[in-house]
């Protein structure tokens, strides 16, 4: 497979939730690609739609409230939005694996760690109980769990948060997936444990040609880990760029504001006040016409209140902002 070939292509994805106050489009017209062996970071704040995008990819939207309204998710020649659950089940875990922020909710408290790691191997690959157990021990050793032959018989509650996250990663890697979707994998962990898990993920990625979608609110994690970055805001992608381009020269006023408001970023640490983005994220149920960021934007022009900017390419990146686009074209 060539380096540039996309293994996943998402086109015009719209995901809606039914709420008491009407329909809410958590993801509203999102298109992107994941290339082989690359890590795509998706960064955004709560309500940006980043996690819902991940759930939709795997057919894991909470039913019946959430549904895919339109769009396609192309994976290996198939459109995942059209597949029945029993076909999706075969893809999940085997081809596309997922790890979550809170491993305690993803691991079954009633099953031993080894059984959970081995479950897919027995179902999908037809391994015997003993073979699955041996493979589970090998995986636990690979992800740095001390005394793996003993740990394989532990229950999730007997492990620390960092260890549980390792077990979830072992479980995700069991069947050598082509794509790993990691949703805030280190957010619940302490800094020193986060460093361990990020180092582990980096090792795993180096050792295989697996692609990764890394979903996070932490710009530092994206800067260290991603090759390409999508910035999401209020259900839309507002900017796409390589990691280097994004941090060196953010184009969208939201990306600029977000980077500037991180206390550790550039010269921020010792400033008297932090730059902020004024106001609040808009209510997705009552969006009017125009750009979703305009009420918080210092650079908004008249057009921003009338027209909805699309994610337009500029060179090898893209931005959804009339002002940024005009500036780039004038250069």
């Amino acid at each position: 497979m060539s380096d540039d070939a996309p293994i996943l292509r998402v086109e015009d994805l719209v995901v809606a939730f039914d709420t008491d106050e009407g329909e809410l489009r958590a993801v509203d017209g999102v298109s992107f690609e994941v290339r082989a062996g690359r890590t795509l970071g998706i960064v955004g704040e709560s309500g940006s739609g980043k996690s819902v995008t991940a759930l939709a990819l795997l057919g894991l939207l909470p039913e019946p409230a959430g549904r895919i309204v339109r769009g396609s998710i192309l994976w290996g020649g198939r459109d995942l939005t059209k597949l029945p659950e029993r076909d999706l089940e075969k893809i999940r875990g085997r081809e596309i694996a997922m790890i979550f922020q809170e491993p305690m909710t993803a691991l079954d408290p009633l099953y031993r760690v080894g059984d959970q790691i081995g479950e897919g191997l027995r179902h999908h690959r037809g391994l015997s109980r003993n073979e699955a157990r041996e493979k589970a021990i090998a995986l636990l050793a690979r992800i740095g769990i001390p005394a793996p032959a003993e740990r394989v018989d532990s229950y999730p509650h007997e492990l620390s948060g960092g260890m549980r996250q390792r077990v979830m990663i072992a479980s995700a890697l069991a069947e050598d997936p082509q794509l790993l979707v990691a949703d805030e994998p280190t957010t619940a962990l302490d800094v020193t444990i986060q460093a361990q898990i990020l180092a582990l993920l980096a090792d795993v990625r180096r050792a295989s040609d697996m692609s990764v979608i890394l979903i996070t609110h932490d710009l530092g994690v994206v800067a260290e880990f991603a090759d390409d970055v999508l910035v999401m805001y209020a259900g839309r992608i507002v900017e796409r760029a390589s990691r280097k381009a994004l941090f060196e020269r953010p184009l969208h006023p939201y990306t600029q504001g977000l980077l500037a408001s991180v206390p550790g970023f550039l010269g921020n640490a010792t400033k008297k006040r932090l730059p902020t983005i004024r106001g609040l994220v808009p209510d997705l149920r009552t969006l009017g016409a125009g750009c979703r960021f305009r009420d918080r934007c210092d650079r908004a022009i008249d057009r921003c209140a009338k027209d909805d900017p699309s994610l337009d390419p500029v060179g090898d990146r893209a931005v959804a902002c009339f002002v940024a686009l005009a500036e780039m074209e004038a250069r």
Partner: protein
Amino acid sequence: MIADPSSNPADAEANLLSVRGIGKVFVTKRSFLGRTLASLRAVDDVDLDVAAGETLGLIGENGCGKSTLGRLVLRLIEPSAGTVRFDGRDITKLDEAALRPLRRRMQIIFQDPMSALNPRMTVRAALGEPLRIHGLVKTADEEEARVAELLGKVGLRKEHMNRYPHEFSGGQRQRIVIARALTVGPELIVCDEPVAALDVSIQAQVVNLLKDLQDELGLAYLFVAHDLSVVRFMSRRVAVMYLGRIVELASAESIYEGPKHPYTKALLSAIPVPDPNAVDDPQRPARIVLAGEPPSPTDPPAGCPFHPRCPIARKGLCDVERPLLRTIGDTKVACHLAE
């Protein structure tokens, strides 16, 4: 203002808050007859000072005792050992009646504003209650005017006072909690992870608000957080905790530019930097990834509590003898090998 940024015990009298030898043991298991079977030393022999109008940052990971310490200094939980002096007065032995007038002068705000606010009380009621209880307003009109004034101080509008907590965003709710802490005119506020639950863009707004209020009202903060960047931004001095003890205490600049304790060094190197050039820089010192996890406070290791994870620990010294805080330059550090 005190000249020595690492604080000087001799100045204990001059500080707004002065804590000496404070400790807290939680009993985790009792026998049928009430005898202690197992216990956990959450905070162990800690000294710290906070001067009027300054911020002392307190950093550490889950379970290091930083939140317990924040509650101990306000006597929201009873210490097992040590003393807390507030404005020169030992408050450790005061009974609740004697403590009440002092309670007005020290407040606390928590991570989760939703759990700190009564969902059935309007903002007006939530802020009006402490004003009335402490006799700070005489009439309903006066109360309303004062609530409106407080809302203005934290960047909310007068119209907000008739709403309920669920009608606000997380950042707005934290503003309400801050306004409520201000009702009684405190001099010290313990901020326990005040922005940890907020989005980055909202976090910056609340951090700025806390700084503005400090400038305007001369507040002192004990700022407890796990986010090292936020702590640096807020604090003049910083204390680093590990397993119930302070392992390093210095000016924010010294902690962040020249950390001396191997744990502080590892913590700082573990922060992901939002700067790809720094990440890719071959000159950048390699990240120190600590092995293992913090030991359990129910069964702390002998010697230095950090030695099982320490990259420079020396056998026969660090696993035997517990290091005490000692002064190097303007830093206090609890490490045999720090220099």
